[in-house]
């Protein structure tokens, strides 16, 4: 089934089942009510004449945790948060956290992507805060060039001063499939 540009009917046309099925049944099956399957779904263009339902998901962990590692990894007591969803070629990823350093050094939260596409951690795709006062902030960006399919988006953490701890609270990841 696929979308077909609607036919312009003239008075002498003979209306047969094949025409009916292509023009009405198959075209209606390409519209939003036919494709709507999940609550809170929204729709985006997949290709010319084709729309697809997408979702937004989030996960959060409120408990305080810390790291002293200067390379991206899990916090001392618990990994994540993470979400798993199907996306097209891009996704909007928002990272939120409250960060408090034990000194003047910074801490960072980045997102690793696995599944149909592999994207590692990077300071250029991270929420970064420095200082001993707690800072709550978010960082949002679009991940482009993904291979359509199932992906896991997981948060990892690091300190900018090896051996010196950074504390993380109220960590959240929100992903909107595009």
């Amino acid at each position, binding site marked *: 089934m696929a979308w077909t540009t609607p036919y312009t*009917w003239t008075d002498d046309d003979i209306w047969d089942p094949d025409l009916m099925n292509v023009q009405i049944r198959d*075209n209606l099956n390409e519209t939003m009510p036919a494709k709507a399957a999940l609550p809170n779904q929204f729709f985006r*263009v997949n290709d010319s004449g084709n729309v697809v339902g997408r979702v937004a998901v989030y996960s959060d962990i409120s408990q305080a945790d810390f790291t002293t590692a200067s390379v991206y990894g899990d916090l001392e007591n618990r990994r994540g948060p993470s979400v798993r969803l199907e996306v097209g070629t891009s996704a909007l990823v928002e990272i939120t956290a409250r960060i408090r350093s034990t000194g003047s050094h910074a801490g960072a939260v980045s997102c690793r992507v696995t599944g149909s596409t592999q994207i590692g951690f990077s300071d250029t795709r991270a929420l970064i805060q*420095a*200082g001993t006062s707690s*800072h709550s902030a978010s*960082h949002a960006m679009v991940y482009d060039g993904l291979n359509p399919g199932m992906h896991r988006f997981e948060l990892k953490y690091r300190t900018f001063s090896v051996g010196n701890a950074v504390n993380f609270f109220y960590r959240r990841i929100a992903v909107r499939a595009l």
Partner: protein
Amino acid sequence: MAWTAPMTAVANAFFTSADYNTNVRDNLLETMPAIASTPTAHFVGTGPNKLIQRTSAEASVDTVETTTNTSWTNLSTNGPLVDIVTGSVALVCVTARTRLTTAGAVYASVEVTNSSSISASEDWAASTVGVSSNGGGRISNTMVFGKSEPALTPGTNRFRVRYRVTSGTGEFAQRSILVIAF
């Protein structure tokens, strides 16, 4: 062509080609698959029974650059900026890695030009206050023009990041702007 409330079939009534074209052809042409043309675009209602396709755009500049300007200014590399067709509403997210080596504040905000004329403002800026070392912090501010911020004039709008400090030298790196048009 426009959407017409679908007719109700009545027993023994004639169903003409004109009825078909208005109620089936023209109405199908107002649905999403008929309008869909740009991959990853989304749909927005523009009024009763009317949809339009809208897109998102993102741009970034990674270069570390500085300013001492206390008025809104460009850095050595203009932007980042995007040109995008919008209605009266757009969601905009500004991100920057900022650092100050003296007391004060740094701001990265958005100005909108072309169809609209909206100057940068602290009211919609990503900002940090105080001295920061070890590369500073990377933060975002998300704003909605046409809701919490001034409304846009529909058309092609340019969204450009602008910068200022309250004192000292502000350092900006890894700057990006994301615009989702509605």
